[in-house]
């Protein structure tokens, strides 16, 4: 009885639907190449792309490789997306010269750390530096903190990137992703 009651009260909330929605939005935008360094927040989206025979998922050793790869994709007539964590934005900075100076579309979907509810102090510098770094390089930044608005933000960013040939980053905040609690993890 007690066990059953406990499991009911701790039953997880329904899975968020935004990863599936942004998968659809990216498919509708014609994305064929998915370059990524994994993040937990992107895991569901990555699985969707991996199961899709029309998309090529490329695991990078560092995020800047993806900026260059998607420039090559664009030169060859394919559209792509770069999936990364905010810490990886820092790895991309000089490479962003390429889409900026060549007027190439680049769509980056960045899951945030060092943002709302962060527990790990080492995530703060790059998390707080993510938007200003991107903007300093000439990347258009759209942040989203509401699960219901993620898909439309990605859709708008894809249109902006591919119709105006600009680098655009969507930052998905920790309010959407949920913040890890390391103290709780350490107790388990």
């Amino acid at each position, binding site marked *: 009885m007690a066990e059953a009651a406990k499991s009911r009260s701790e039953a997880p909330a329904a899975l968020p639907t935004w990863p599936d929605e942004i998968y659809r939005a990216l498919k509708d935008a014609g994305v064929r*190449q998915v370059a990524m360094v994994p993040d937990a927040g992107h895991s569901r989206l990555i699985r969707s792309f991996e199961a899709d025979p029309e998309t*090529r998922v*490329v695991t990078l050793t560092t995020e800047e490789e993806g900026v*260059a790869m998607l420039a*090559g*994709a664009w030169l060859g007539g*394919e559209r792509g997306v770069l999936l990364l964590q905010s810490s990886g934005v820092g790895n991309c900075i000089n490479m962003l010269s390429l889409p900026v100076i060549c*007027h190439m579309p680049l769509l980056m979907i960045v899951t945030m750390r060092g943002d709302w509810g962060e527990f790990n102090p080492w995530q703060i510098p790059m998390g707080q530096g993510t938007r200003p770094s991107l903007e300093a390089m000439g990347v258009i930044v759209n942040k989203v903190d509401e699960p219901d608005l993620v898909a439309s933000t990605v859709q708008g960013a894809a249109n902006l990137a*591919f119709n105006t040939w600009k680098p655009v980053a969507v930052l998905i905040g920790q309010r959407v992703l949920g913040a890890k609690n390391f103290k709780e993890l350490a107790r388990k």
Partner: protein
Amino acid sequence: MTNPNALLHRRDVVNELLRDRADLLVIAGLGAPNWDVSAAGDHPNNFPLWGAMGAAAMIGLGLALAQPKRKVLVITGDGEMLMNIGSLATIAVEAPKNLTVAVLDNERFGETGMQKTPTASGVDLAAIATACGIRTSRIVRTMAEVTELRELAHAGRGTAFAQIKINPEALVFVMPPADGVILATRFRQSVLGDEALYN
């Protein structure tokens, strides 16, 4: 008399790689490889880099995946390759048949005063590529081997990597257009047709 131990001349190497280039697509890394590729003849199917150090091989990967029927040749330098040496792991895993990466290895950072790169101390890029899983990976020291490499690049039967040992000579700059929009647009128009000018 030709000294069999003499280092290759970079422009001879690039002229041979691009001889009868047909519809080969060429990415040139920043600095001297850009000038070498341009010296062999400016061409809309060249995408020569003026910055974004470390980009060349990965641009080649994205292009090779997008255009599987075309052959893609990346010509870059040892310093440029080393800056994103991890991209050899990424490329090895994807293994596009139509991608060749040719590194002109003068063991120097040529644009900045000929300072030594790690290859001058023995770092073996071809062995790194092999260890990553690029089976067709070699060090090239003769023009006959350059010709073989050219044939590999044109055949497109598997990802290939070459570390071509060249003379650390400083040559006159032969520059392509510097504007990225011109370079990207003419490349896309050449590869994709006039459609590329529209969204």
